[in-house]
């Protein structure tokens, strides 16, 4: 017998046959198929017990109730909380994606101190010691009034603690960012009572006249308004949108009236004139509850006839008359003001003119009308222990005449040496959200020491000297009283549903730590062991309900104020808020545009939200500006062309989006883009429109009420 090639052939065949009839190939095929369907490197979220925790979203002033879906205690999804008075199960895309803020790489992960231009890590103990040292120096120099604080709101116990700290320290310089809420409050102070704000019963209105409000673009409480907008379709209510561009709100309205930018007040007064001239107003209300009506009546009849107004606004006189008639004849008409999301203050002339329409309709404190809501009585704060330094400090006037942030920065820039030596910045980002960013940055840089309480490294935090990072809202306790414009009082409770993910603290605890370290009367004004104890004590009687249900709702027997109205201010016919720049050098008008998908407030938009923005707004890193085809043709621009936009405040390279829905001569530019802070998802995407628009102080309110600026576009 001889071993030859046949033997080897037999060996091979035998091996193949042996393997084939064994379980190996069949088992391997099965295993490989399972492997390919479950790649081991594909992350699979761990399975586990599903629970829901309720809390309140504080990303925007809407204050929706949210339910956080958790798996084994790990938050995985945000949903709207069913049955919550404000949003009843609804949620917007920003709230929905707020878990991305929790793990955002831009978060400040521990206290940081700036050395030169470099951030260095520092312990909480050292950070508090450092801040306390700087504060003690101010008190030692008998100048506690050189401390200032900027926050987004003066409502709730965390802001309350900041305000209280400043008082106990000896400073009046507590500022909140101006928004339409403030203009409405000032309007109500002029026309009704001080200490009141409007409650719009929009759900029960049958005719809604909106002067540029982005009703479905984030105005007021966004999700609440989405639901009202849906209810209107069912109730057959009529919604009229007045603004120079076809926004989403205008597109969904029953009627859109394009009006020249900045002439809303004229249009409202023209309507008032028509209503008064035709005796279409509610005579019983006007004669029984108002004063200054005759002056107002004479003023509008003289200056604001529909024919005159037609020339100013570009709206035909017949249209103004038709609109006035429809408004006056409606059962429950309401007129609202506040441009876009309402994050910026408006002009008093416009707001009082718009509210004059509500008063003429006699729809004050009536179902479907506007209610005079007194400020919520809230919080059982004990008296502050003021020592002589504090008493002397608070006797000095607030820096900046009107007490607005814009006035503060103007004062700092106008002074050789900053009147503020130490600034607290909490829940606000003035270096991004305020008009004329460069001037704001200049003022901020002049302040010797800035303490930021930001959760993320935003534009203002980058300019700070020390950051005491706060828990973001999903990680902390906080009471959230009220949302703007509601006809009910809803107080929500934010509770920790995650983390804390990083070495951060509740800002309430940070301020308590600083107060205690200062000792003396400041420390004794803060007798609470920690923020949670403070929250429990200050909310007092309502704490049990708040912590049990997560909210407290009061919609019956609310203490509405009398419906009396005073037309005196409206009758003064103050000057409109003019835009900066001359028509000769800048033939176009730039107006900021609010878009629901881009967040233009304190936080930068989340990665998820940015991905939903259309490429007619942002394409790669370029922002697009809206331009009417007629205007574009005059300049020689086509869709997608690069252009240079110039305003008295600055220039920027933009792309052109030809849009027939914007009035000729007007350029629309979205808010919320052009972030410069280190945020990998949104940095250097587009241009911040606030860099191009400067502040214009409204004489009526003292607030920055700029609504646009003159501009020029040239082909690049």
């Amino acid at each position, binding site marked *: *017998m*001889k*071993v*030859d090639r*046949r*033997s*080897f*052939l*037999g*060996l*091979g*065949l*035998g*091996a*193949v*046959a*042996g*393997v084939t*009839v*064994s*379980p*190996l190939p*069949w*088992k*391997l095929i*099965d*295993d*490989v198929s*399972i*492997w390919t*369907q*479950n790649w*081991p490197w594909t992350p*699979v979220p761990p399975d586990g*017990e*599903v629970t829901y925790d309720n809390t309140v979203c504080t990303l925007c002033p809407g204050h929706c109730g949210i339910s956080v879906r958790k798996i084994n205690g790990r938050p995985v999804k945000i949903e709207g909380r069913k049955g919550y008075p404000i949003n009843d199960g609804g949620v917007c895309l920003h709230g929905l994606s707020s878990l991305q803020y929790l793990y955002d790489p831009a978060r400040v992960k521990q206290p940081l101190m700036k050395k030169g231009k470099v951030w260095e890590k520092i312990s909480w103990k050292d950070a508090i010691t450092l801040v306390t040292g700087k504060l003690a120096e101010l008190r030692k120099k008998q100048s506690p009034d050189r401390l200032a604080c900027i926050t987004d709101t003066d409502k709730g116990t965390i802001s309350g603690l900041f305000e209280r700290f400043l008082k106990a320290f000896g400073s009046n310089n507590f500022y909140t960012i101006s928004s339409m809420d403030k203009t409405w409050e000032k309007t109500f102070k002029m026309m009704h009572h001080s200490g009141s704000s409007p409650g719009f019963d929009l759900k029960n209105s049958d005719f809604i006249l909106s002067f540029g409000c982005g009703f479905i673009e984030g105005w007021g409480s966004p999700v609440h308004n989405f639901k009202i907008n849906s209810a209107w379709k069912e109730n057959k209510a009529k919604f009229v949108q007045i603004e120079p561009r076809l926004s989403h709100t205008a597109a969904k309205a029953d009627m859109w009236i394009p009006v020249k930018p900045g002439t809303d007040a004229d249009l409202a007064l023209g309507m008032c004139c028509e209503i008064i001239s035709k005796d279409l107003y509610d005579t019983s209300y006007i004669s029984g509850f108002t004063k200054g009506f005759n002056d107002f009546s004479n003023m509008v009849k003289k200056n604001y006839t529909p024919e005159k107004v037609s020339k100013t606004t570009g709206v035909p006189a017949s249209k103004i008359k038709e609109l006035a008639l429809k408004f006056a004849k409606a059962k429950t008409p309401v007129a609202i003001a506040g441009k876009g999301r309402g994050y910026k203050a408006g002009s008093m002339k416009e707001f009082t003119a718009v509210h004059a329409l509500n008063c003429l309709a006699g729809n004050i404190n009536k179902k479907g009308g506007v209610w005079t809501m007194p400020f919520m009585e809230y919080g059982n704060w004990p008296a502050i222990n003021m020592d002589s330094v504090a008493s002397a400090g608070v006797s000095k006037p607030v820096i900046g005449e009107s007490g607005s942030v814009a006035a503060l920065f103007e004062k700092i820039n106008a002074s050789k040496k900053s009147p503020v030596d130490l600034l607290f910045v909490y829940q606000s980002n003035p270096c991004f959200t305020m008009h004329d960013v460069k001037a704001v940055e200049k003022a901020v840089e002049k302040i010797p020491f800035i303490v930021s309480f930001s959760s993320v490294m935003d534009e203002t935090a980058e300019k700070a000297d020390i950051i005491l990072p706060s828990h973001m809202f999903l990680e902390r306790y906080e009471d959230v009283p009220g949302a703007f414009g509601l006809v009910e009082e809803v107080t929500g409770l934010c509770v920790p549903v995650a983390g804390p993910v990083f070495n951060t603290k509740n800002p309430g605890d940070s301020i308590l730590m600083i107060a205690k370290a200062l000792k003396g009367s400041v420390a004794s004004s803060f007798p609470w062991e920690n923020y949670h104890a403070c929250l429990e004590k200050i909310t007092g009687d309502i704490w049990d309900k708040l912590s049990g249900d997560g909210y407290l709702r009061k919609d019956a027997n609310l203490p509405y104020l009398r419906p009396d109205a005073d037309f005196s201010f409206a009758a003064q016919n103050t000057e409109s808020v003019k835009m900066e720049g001359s028509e000769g050098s800048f033939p176009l008008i730039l107006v900021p545009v609010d878009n629901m998908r881009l967040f233009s407030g304190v936080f930068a938009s989340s990665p998820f939200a940015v991905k939903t923005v259309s490429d007619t707004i942002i394409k790669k890193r370029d922002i697009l500006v809206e331009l009417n085809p007629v205007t574009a043709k005059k300049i020689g621009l086509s869709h997608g062309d690069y252009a240079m936009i110039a305003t008295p405040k600055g220039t920027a390279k933009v792309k052109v989006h030809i849009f027939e829905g914007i009035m000729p001569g007007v350029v629309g530019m979205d808010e919320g883009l052009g972030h410069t802070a280190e945020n990998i998802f949104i940095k250097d995407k587009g241009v911040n429109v606030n860099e191009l628009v400067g502040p214009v102080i409204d004489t009526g309110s003292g607030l920055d009420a700029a609504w646009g600026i003159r501009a020029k576009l040239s082909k690049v």
Partner: protein
Amino acid sequence: MNELEEKTEDVSMDAVEDGQKEEQKAEGDSGLGMGVLFFLVAFVVCFLSCWLLFPKVLYSEKSQPFNFNHRLHVEETGDCESCHSFRDDGSFAGIPKISKCLECHDEQQGDTKDEAFFIKNYASKDKEVPWFIYSKQPDCVFFSHAAHVKAAGMDCKTCHGDIGDSTKCKPYEENRITGYSRDIWGKSIWGIKKHSWDRMKMDDCAQCHEKETGEKGSCFQCHK
């Protein structure tokens, strides 16, 4: 050369050629014989090694963190659901969390080494026990215990066998390719089963579904 001589030469030449063919035939037979032999040897060696050795290569054997006596716990608690419970939302909790164990084991109950180990390393530290799960299905599989146990009234044993009667944990054999337990394919590498709980593959689900409901079910019932 005459004609006879030519014939004689032809014969002799044929004889030579025939002799050579015979020789070749004999050699060819022996070559085939070796081929067959080699075939059989290779067949048997490969077949046996793929049957007997392949599973040893495919699965890596792991020990559970400590031994768990199911029988003892069933005797104490009376059923499976006391520990392997359903949550309020109807989902199945699977292996109990440490908090469940601590309901009884806040302190040592018996005197076994395993319980002492558990108390020292997990219970006292409130740390989850990293159990290997014998019946864990791939992530692409959706399975509702509630539908089978509560709605259809099936017994745990139908799929999980006599584990409730075991006194110690068998080694966990992890498939090196898929990462899942050997119990899914079944102990038999041939995929042969004697009992309903011997395998937990899709075909086994379908077999039972066909028997109980008349149809195997559709893809998206399990692969969502």
